[in-house]
């Protein structure tokens, strides 16, 4: 009997690329024997070592599986087509196969294991999960501690800072003993002290548009603990493009927010804030201050949402913005709608790749055009001028009154930034102006402003009061 054997794509390399092989055979067994006689390389793909047809190989005569005919003894009429059809299957190894717990882990996680909504299955999902924390500061610290304790199997940490004394008022993953260390190293050591059964992957670098997709792709969930708008939009956009969940949190003085972005039909950060505020309008924690306990509350909410999403327990904070006011001690939940016109997750997205977020947020380093040049005076030069007597010149401190109370340069006049435009007449009477703030950033803005309104003899005090305390009077405190 002349029979045609149809070869599936995966096995064609073993039959010289042929789609069909013609053989002479009376039944299925003889047909396969003739096939393997012509093409020995195909045999191991069809038969197990014991000679049985492999479980994931199916043979069809017409529309019938030969298993339900007479198996290998099924007779073949002349001109028949015998099709080799691969079984294709797969699945997630969420539980049984590769995730196992030692007895120590079972004891460690026992309070989870007896929880109905988590149990062994949920704990295994936690162990298999990969969570990336962007930032190991105020929000990242409590989030990382609780995710580590909860048994999240792989925690990624990205930050590019070192531990500073001013961090320790709220960044509780770091400590006095790790001052000066890289934040990612300090955090990793603390995480492993809490839970040695999990992996920590560290990236001592800023998150950039160039690297964000490759990095975030390797994780299941991102926890946004960033302290600036550029990175927050970058995290949001990367998560939307990759289809990753972005657990958002942010803090400002006594207020906090949290939500879950990036879910299907759920909004993203751009649906909430399509554009960043003008640079300088919203002070950072370093400029505006922050209640140390506040990021603890918000970071723990972020960790809670991550654990819920991983285990499938409860209702995630999708489409809802949680607003926390520590002074009132109130939690409010605002409904968030997905914006159909959102530039990245809307119906007709305009953003299909990551962009330049410094430019988007208006914080590109200012170009050195003549109009933007900020004349400077160093703190040592200033000290000499003060010692000699300022004469008609004036030193103006544009910080806020509460900063003034911490430390000041003798001879300075307090004039908070927002009040400067009200004092132009007064300032115009000075022969020369030195403008000073904490680090020299805000005062540079004021110098530029004054130059645009006609002041020519105005200089920025380079490095601000921090430089003064470092180089002129080391007895002064810094903040």
């Amino acid at each position, binding site marked *: 009997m002349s029979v045609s054997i149809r070869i599936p*794509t995966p096995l064609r390399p073993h039959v010289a690329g042929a789609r069909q092989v013609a053989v002479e055979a009376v039944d299925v067994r003889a047909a396969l024997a003739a096939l393997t006689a012509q093409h020995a390389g195909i045999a191991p793909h069809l038969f197990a070592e014991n000679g049985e047809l492999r479980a994931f190989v199916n043979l069809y005569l017409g529309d019938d599986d030969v298993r339900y005919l007479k198996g290998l003894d099924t007779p073949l009429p002349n001109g028949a087509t015998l099709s080799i059809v691969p079984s294709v299957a797969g*699945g997630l190894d969420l539980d049984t196969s590769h995730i196992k717990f030692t007895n120590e882990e079972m004891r460690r996680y026992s309070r989870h294991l007896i929880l109905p909504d988590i149990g062994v299955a949920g704990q295994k999902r936690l162990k298999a999960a990969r969570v990336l924390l962007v930032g190991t500061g105020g929000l990242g610290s409590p989030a990382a501690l609780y995710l580590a304790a909860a048994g999240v199997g792989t925690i990624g940490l990205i930050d590019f800072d070192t531990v500073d004394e001013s961090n320790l008022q709220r960044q509780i993953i770091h400590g006095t003993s790790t001052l000066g260390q890289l934040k990612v190293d300090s955090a990793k050591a603390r995480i492993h002290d809490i839970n040695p059964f999990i992996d920590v992957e560290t990236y001592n670098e800023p998150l950039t548009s160039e690297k964000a997709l490759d990095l975030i792709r390797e994780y299941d969930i991102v926890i946004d603990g960033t302290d600036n708008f550029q990175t927050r939009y970058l995290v949001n956009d990367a998560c939307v493009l990759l289809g990753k969940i972005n657990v958002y949190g942010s803090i400002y003085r006594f207020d906090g927010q949290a939500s879950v972005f990036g879910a299907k039909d759920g909004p993203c950060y751009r649906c909430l804030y399509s554009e960043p505020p003008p640079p300088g309008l919203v002070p950072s924690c370093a400029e505006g201050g922050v209640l140390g306990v506040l990021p603890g509350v918000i970071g723990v909410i972020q960790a809670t949402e991550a654990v819920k999403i991983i285990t499938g327990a409860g209702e995630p904070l999708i489409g809802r913005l949680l607003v926390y006011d520590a002074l009132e001690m109130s939690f409010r939940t605002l409904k968030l709608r997905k914006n159909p016109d959102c530039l990245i997750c809307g119906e007709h997205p305009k953003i299909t790749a990551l962009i330049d977020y410094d430019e988007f947020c208006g914080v590109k380093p200012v170009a050195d055009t003549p109009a933007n040049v900020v004349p400077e005076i160093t703190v040592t030069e200033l000290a000499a001028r003060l010692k000699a007597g300022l004469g008609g010149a004036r030193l103006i401190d544009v910080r806020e009154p509460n900063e003034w109370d911490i430390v000041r340069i003798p001879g300075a006049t307090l004039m908070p930034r927002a009040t400067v435009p009200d004092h132009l007449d007064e300032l115009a009477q000075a022969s020369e102006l030195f403008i000073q703030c904490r680090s020299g950033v805000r005062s540079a803005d004021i110098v530029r402003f004054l130059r645009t309104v006609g002041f020519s003899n105005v200089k920025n005090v380079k490095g601000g009061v921090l430089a003064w305390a470092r180089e002129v009077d080391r007895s002064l405190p810094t903040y």
Partner: protein
Amino acid sequence: MIAISQVEYDKLRAHLEAGYPNEACGLFIGEIDGANKRVVEAVPVANAWAPLEGDGAGHDLRDRFSIDPRDILKADRDASKRGLDIIGFFHSHPDWPATPSETDRMWAWPVVSFMIVPVEQGRAGMARSWVLRDGRDAFDEETLIVEQEEQ
């Protein structure tokens, strides 16, 4: 390398999202030339996984998929009529990254593409495509090109 048009790519992702929270699957009909493949049509098929003895315990459609061989047979006949071949398969990983699992490896085949799309909370993410080594011991990732339609 596997190339797919935006239209077919969107189609398969919609199918996988519709299947969430279960795994969903389908196959690719197209052209194959050595390691280079071009998808002509992404064919959604039903997830035919059923609890079997041995593999049934602790699993369901949320973490298992299977393509009915009859669907493969039908697609192969259709492809053959059009001068095309089955060049690969796709499936979703609900709330899971697009990397092949050990179970995927056990039931995969060399040569053809295995595209995996993570579907997080019902939303399809970026697909990755894999090819099983001849020795069946591991997958290698292949380049996935989603071609934008020319206007």
